[in-house]
């Protein structure tokens, strides 16, 4: 994945560093130098790239000192996750545990415990690594990102956010200040299944599944895929196939088949494309069974 690093570098090339303490200040800086800048929250994706000199920005804009962004809250039927909320915060947060338990499940499998103490959910989503876990979860949960610039604010749906590997809909002068997740009405359940070779590895394949139920029927299904394409993938056909259906072995199998065909993985050291597609199928099946169980549990 990282390829040949031999003797490339251990230490970053030189850069300017600014750590503003107000959002206005940060947006001013980006308005001026956004094209040459990298925004850093926890730095757990960026600093490794700086050390290897894969990234050599002229400016690192550290938003770690901006106020009020390290908060999870609930507002207007949505969960709000600030830009400085770390993976470990997601793991432990009661509001998230009560309203979107898949979040804690996914957080638990991100990188390793030490990285989770520094890395942020929003930073990870903005890094847009197709092997990133949060992208798939955000797609499954129909999350929205709030991007701010000097010009104002816009809201981007997760489904519109991921453009290419490490490339998003974000403009160089924008900062994502929060992510919003709609709280499902009624019964809902989710599951995050991840195949990793060891703790700290990126996923070989991971699948986020979320179902919202009305009685026995699915009102909305969300399926997000990790590491099986140039970006995190939303398995739209599979989601549609489940809407309005009861979750039976048959409908689950069909959704799994559709999700697998939405996957577009490549052969690599982690396995063949055929392998990864099949694991998508297996994980969608397992995930839907688990999610169904959790949705029903919630009812009782």
């Amino acid at each position, binding site marked *: 994945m*990282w390829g040949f*690093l031999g003797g490339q570098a*251990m*230490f*970053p*090339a*030189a*850069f*300017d*560093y600014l*750590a503003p303490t107000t959002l206005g200040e940060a947006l001013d800086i980006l308005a001026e130098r956004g094209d040459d800048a990298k925004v850093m929250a926890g*730095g*757990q994706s960026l*600093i*490794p790239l*700086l*050390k*290897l000199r894969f990234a050599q920005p002229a400016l*690192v804009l*550290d938003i*770690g000192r901006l106020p009020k962004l390290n908060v999870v809250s609930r507002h207007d039927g949505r969960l709000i996750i600030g830009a400085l909320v770390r993976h*470990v915060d997601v793991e432990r947060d009661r509001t998230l545990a009560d309203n979107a338990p898949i979040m804690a499940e996914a957080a638990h499998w991100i*990188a*390793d*415990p*030490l*990285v989770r*103490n*520094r890395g942020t959910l929003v930073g990870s989503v903005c890094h847009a690594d197709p092997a990133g876990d949060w992208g798939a979860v955000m797609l499954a949960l129909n999350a929205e990102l709030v991007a701010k610039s000097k010009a104002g604010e816009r809201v981007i749906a997760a489904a519109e956010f991921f453009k290419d590997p490490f490339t998003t809909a974000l403009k160089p002068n924008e900062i994502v200040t929060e992510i919003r997740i709609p709280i499902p009405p009624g019964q809902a359940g989710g599951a995050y299944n991840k195949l990793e070779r060891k*703790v*700290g590895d990126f996923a070989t394949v991971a699948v986020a599944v979320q179902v919202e139920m009305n009685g026995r029927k699915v009102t909305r299904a969300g399926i997000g895929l990790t590491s099986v394409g140039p970006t995190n993938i939303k398995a739209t056909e599979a989601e549609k196939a489940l809407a309005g259906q009861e979750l039976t072995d048959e409908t689950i199998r069909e959704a799994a088949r559709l999700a697998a065909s939405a996957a577009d993985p490549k052969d690599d050291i982690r396995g063949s494309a055929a392998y990864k597609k099949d694991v998508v199928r297996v994980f969608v099946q397992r995930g839907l069974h688990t999610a169904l169980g959790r949705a029903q549990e919630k009812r009782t």
Partner: protein
Amino acid sequence: MKVTMRVNGGERTGDVEPRVLLADFLRTNLALTGTHIGCDTTSCGACTVLLDGEPVKSCTLLAVQVDGRDITTVEGLAQGGALSPVQVGFHEEHGLQCGFCTPGMMLVGTALLEQNPDPTEEQIRWAISGNICRCTGYMNIVKAIQHAANVKQAAASAPSPAAVAAGGGE
């Protein structure tokens, strides 16, 4: 840039380029060489320090990022002459061999016991899963942290905390 941080209880300052990693700052500027470097990819945890009490990888932090914050390195574990319960545990249970991963492992164990005074084996294994050891096979590291948990609990229920100072070291 000028940076100031509390390290092992004392205020330390330095003048560094923004690109200087915290691990390097601690080792080179402050001569705290107990913080080790084992990889370039945030994989091994040899460089673990506590940042405001939480374990983090100091090779993946810039020194300037922690300006104004609190750092504990392995050199800060022993209080006075006495080893901390986790250090005692590592000695008594043979939780170290070459010693290179040991500072990181002990700092993770220390933070874990602050949060969870009586962790299960699974919880310990999960907590140290960001740190690689090539020598011990982890069996005795798990025991070392359990040992420390017992020492701490015994000390908490004993009339005098002096018991903690017993055992361990040469």
